[in-house]
């Protein structure tokens, strides 16, 4: 991860999983964990985008606090003691991914992102061999109106990475979320077909940041749906380095 360490920034020391580590003041626990090559699952967080805090996969235990804390949204404090993995946390993460798999139609075998999906690989890493909840099987459309890109609502997990990259990096603000609860969905402008959007610049950043097979390039064969994510930290760094 390319991060510039400004000399004047003072650093903090804290303990993660029993190991003493240091990080820059203002860093979140997630950054500290990943700077020290430790594992923490995430889906809605993406370096270069603002914090959303919706998937709740990065919850950690902090000594002295009865509640769990989202590592992506909690700043490190001096002397903090963080536990990133425990039986309880593992159980909760499994259930969150099971809930996602049950919410919409995640049929990996016929999905264009089969083998390149963060949700699929996370399910495997967490040891999920079946979903214990009833499947919702909602009836959702596939928006094929754009000539180069496609939005398949059946695969969407509402992590809003696409909404954030469109607003914060591209600046078009074409995408947003309509409705509430399980009926919420990604829209373009006034919920028009993507191809008819008058604000979309067709830059493709949303496709690249989408963790699943919801946003894909058209015409790419099944299983070859690789996505380039490195552009985002690079863009942010370039902006900071050359304001």
């Amino acid at each position, binding site marked *: 991860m390319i991060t510039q360490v400004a000399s004047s920034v003072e650093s903090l020391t804290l303990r993660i999983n029993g190991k003493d580590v240091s990080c820059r003041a203002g860093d979140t626990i997630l950054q500290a964990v990943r700077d020290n090559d430790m594992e923490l699952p995430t889906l809605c967080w993406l370096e270069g985008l603002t914090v959303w805090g919706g998937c709740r996969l990065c919850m950690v235990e902090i000594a002295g606090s009865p509640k769990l804390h989202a590592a992506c949204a909690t700043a490190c404090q001096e002397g903090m003691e963080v536990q990133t993995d425990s039986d309880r946390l593992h159980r909760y993460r499994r259930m969150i991914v099971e809930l996602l798999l049950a919410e919409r139609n995640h049929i990996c075998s016929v999905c264009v992102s089969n083998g390149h999906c963060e949700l699929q690989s996370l399910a495997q890493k967490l040891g999920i061999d079946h979903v214990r909840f009833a499947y919702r099987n909602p009836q959702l459309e596939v928006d094929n109106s754009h000539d180069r890109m496609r939005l398949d609502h059946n695969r969407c997990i509402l992590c809003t990475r696409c909404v954030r990259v469109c*607003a914060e990096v591209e600046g078009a*603000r*074409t*995408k*947003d*979320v*309509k*409705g*509430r609860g399980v009926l919420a969905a990604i*829209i*373009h*402008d*006034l*919920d028009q077909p993507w191809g008819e959007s008058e*604000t979309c610049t067709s830059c493709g950043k949303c496709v690249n940041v989408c963790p699943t097979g919801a946003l894909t390039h058209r015409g790419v064969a099944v299983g070859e749906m690789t996505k380039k994510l490195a552009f985002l930290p690079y863009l942010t760094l370039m902006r900071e380095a050359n304001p």
Partner: protein
Amino acid sequence: MLHAPPVTAPPTSDKRWKIVETVMRRNDFEPEALIESLHSVQQSFGYLDEPSMRWVAGALHVPLSKVYAVATFYHFFSLKPQGRHTCVVCLGTACYIKGGRELLDEVERHYHVQEGKTTEDGELSVMVARCIGACGLAPTTVLDGQVLGRKTSPQLLAAIDEKLQRKVTS
């Protein structure tokens, strides 16, 4: 930051747009006034259609997607025209345990309409409210803005028929 006056003229020459424009001007076209403006559109025209959302977006410099996202987030805004008459059945806790659910089922069966929808002839919209704060009169319904307390199914159906009939006979 001085806001330029609304870029585009209102969608139609209808004078009710003036009401909406005054609400926006009172908040000097701040993006923050989005919900207030949508409220005034709904009160003036009964629902939010595409031209009105597009015009409000332009006037407040708010992305189109955000106007639609806000309009569909809140239960109060409707994107479809309302029926000439509206029947809101309260399903707050007090009304629910005093038979609100049965009242709603009765109305839905009698007028062949689903909650949240309008009858084909556009006469009657049936909606559910979470709580309208008149729990002392549970189960309560609101017929065209008028609160009816402690009504049994036959009484409620009669009141609605009367509203509809009056529409037909007058």
